[in-house]
């Protein structure tokens, strides 16, 4: 086993009847990595996470952890932690006992137990809350208890289910920093599941984008954000104008359209963010069908022979009227080059 294959999924498949939730998935995760499983609901990310935890039995395929095949190892013997989206704290136990729960089952008692629980609470900044009941804590505090409860078990992999989605915007930022700090400090391997690309981009070392039970793209946040390989990923990270290429031309609803310069070799599709669309000059024409003010920018929806185009300009520029006919360009040099369609 090498550190880069600390956790390996090999041809992992999970199906319910005729529905394949995850199909033939291969994935290697390195020791100490902070990885995001990103995708829309129903893409199989939660199923994958539950399979890693041992809460779901794969239909076929293998899960290897730290060099050992754990596919048939039951969830309570797998040394995988999970921080639930709803935190899943035990309501009848106080914070101390919640964190101590797993340690007690391991037979740890006395000073050793106290030290480890206090250490865990200190890590998440809740030392003063040991005697509180979960119901007396805020959502953010409950989540940190849940994190501490898993961390004190020293799991080989820690899974987090939508760790930030139940928190308000300010707490979210705080928790994000907290998770990164805890991860760097402990060096623990973390995988978190999210449907929010902003969360994934901000938090992860590496992002695995999933769609329809399969991996769509794997890359660093920069790679995913700047170089999406498929129309789905492109759209997901904000390249909202996506076109397939055929013989150096764009395929549109109204037929083939010329590019404003030569098509790059190898690309089967091009995608532009609204901010990449150059309004005012260019070979294409469109009619303003909608505009909205978004603070620093102004967003336009254009009706064009290429189909609907989303554009964005600096809000300090004069607004274009509804119904105005504008020239625009889709600069090939700026476009994301897609290597796959569908």
């Amino acid at each position, binding site marked *: 086993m090498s550190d880069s294959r600390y956790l390996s999924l090999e041809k992992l498949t999970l199906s319910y009847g005729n529905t394949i939730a995850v199909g033939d998935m291969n994935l290697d995760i390195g020791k100490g990595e902070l990885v995001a499983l990103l995708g829309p609901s129903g893409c199989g990310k939660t199923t994958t996470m539950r399979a890693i935890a041992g809460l779901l039995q794969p239909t076929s395929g293998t899960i290897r952890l730290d060099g050992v095949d754990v596919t048939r190892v039951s969830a*309570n013997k797998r040394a995988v932690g999970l921080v*639930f989206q*709803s935190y899943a704290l*035990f309501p009848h136990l106080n914070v101390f006992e919640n964190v101590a*729960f797993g340690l007690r089952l391991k037979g740890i008692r006395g000073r050793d137990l106290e030290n480890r629980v206090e250490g865990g609470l200190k890590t998440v900044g809740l030392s003063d809350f040991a005697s509180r009941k979960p119901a007396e804590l805020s959502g953010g505090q409950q989540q940190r208890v849940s994190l501490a409860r898993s961390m004190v078990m020293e799991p080989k992999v820690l899974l987090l289910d939508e760790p930030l989605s139940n928190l308000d915007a300010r707490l979210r930022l705080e928790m994000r920093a907290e998770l990164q700090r805890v991860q760097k400090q402990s060096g623990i391997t973390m995988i978190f599941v999210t449907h929010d690309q902003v969360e994934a981009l901000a938090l992860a070392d590496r992002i695995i984008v999933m769609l329809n039970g399969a991996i769509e793209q794997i890359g660093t946040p920069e790679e995913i954000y700047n170089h999406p390989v498929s129309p789905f990923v492109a759209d997901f990270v904000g390249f909202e104008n996506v076109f397939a290429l055929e013989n150096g031309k764009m395929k549109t609803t109204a037929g083939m359209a010329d590019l404003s310069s030569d098509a790059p070799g190898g690309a089967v599709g091009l995608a532009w963010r609204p901010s990449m669309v150059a309004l005012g000059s260019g070979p294409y024409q469109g009619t303003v069908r909608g505009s909205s003010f978004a603070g620093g920018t102004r967003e336009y929806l254009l009706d064009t022979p290429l189909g609907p185009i989303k554009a964005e300009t600096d809000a300090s520029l004069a607004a274009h009227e509804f119904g105005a006919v504008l020239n625009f360009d889709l600069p090939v040099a700026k476009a994301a080059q897609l290597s796959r369609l569908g």
Partner: protein
Amino acid sequence: MSRLYTPTILGLVLLFLIGPFVIIIAASLSAGETLAFPPDGLSLRWVIKVFEVESFRTSFGISMFLAIGGTLAALVLGIPAAYALARYKVPFGETIRTVVSAPIIVPGIIVGLALLRYLVVPFQFGILPALFLAHTALILPYAVRVVSASLNNLRGDIEEAAVLLGSSRTGAFFRVVMPNIRGGILAAFILGFVTSFNQVPVSLFLSGPGVRTLPIDMLAYMEITYDPSVAALSALLAFMSLGIVFLAERFLGFSRYV
């Protein structure tokens, strides 16, 4: 107008609810020989007499046995049933729920008659086991419903959390589910106990030589002896029920579960 209305209606309702209770207490304190209201002088002789009647002691024992034993049996059956219905997609779950609730809907007379006609008579089934069976069946709906209510308030993922922290599935049930539905279980126990203890129609059919529940014994006693000791016993039983419910409310917030 309405300022006068509300207290009047409230007063009448209270009178309707509490009136009989007051009459029974007053009658039980009578010094006279027959059941009468207003009481014929004041004394505790009939309260004392209650403890001297042999058959009351026996039937009280049987009623206690049925109420406690039947409720425990109903809980042993009802808790796993409620758990399964709450956590899993049980085939015909709704049907099972309805069948379990049936003893509440079916008149007790019918349950009693049916048990007598189709269990006791043809199979020489003992009266006591038949009573036990009947009381268990009558309490089961309460056990399932009340425990279901507390299970529905409990998220299922705490069991998964316990498993991921090293507990077995069964261990998770006893470590994190049971402590959190304890209040519901105790509430079901009290409801079951009171239901069984005050049960008349079913027990009416299932009486035999030496085997009678307390309410039936009281009926039988009244047919022969019309003295205030029945009132005294009723008052004592009412105080027992009140005491149980009071303690339950005080320590468990009983009303949350019923």
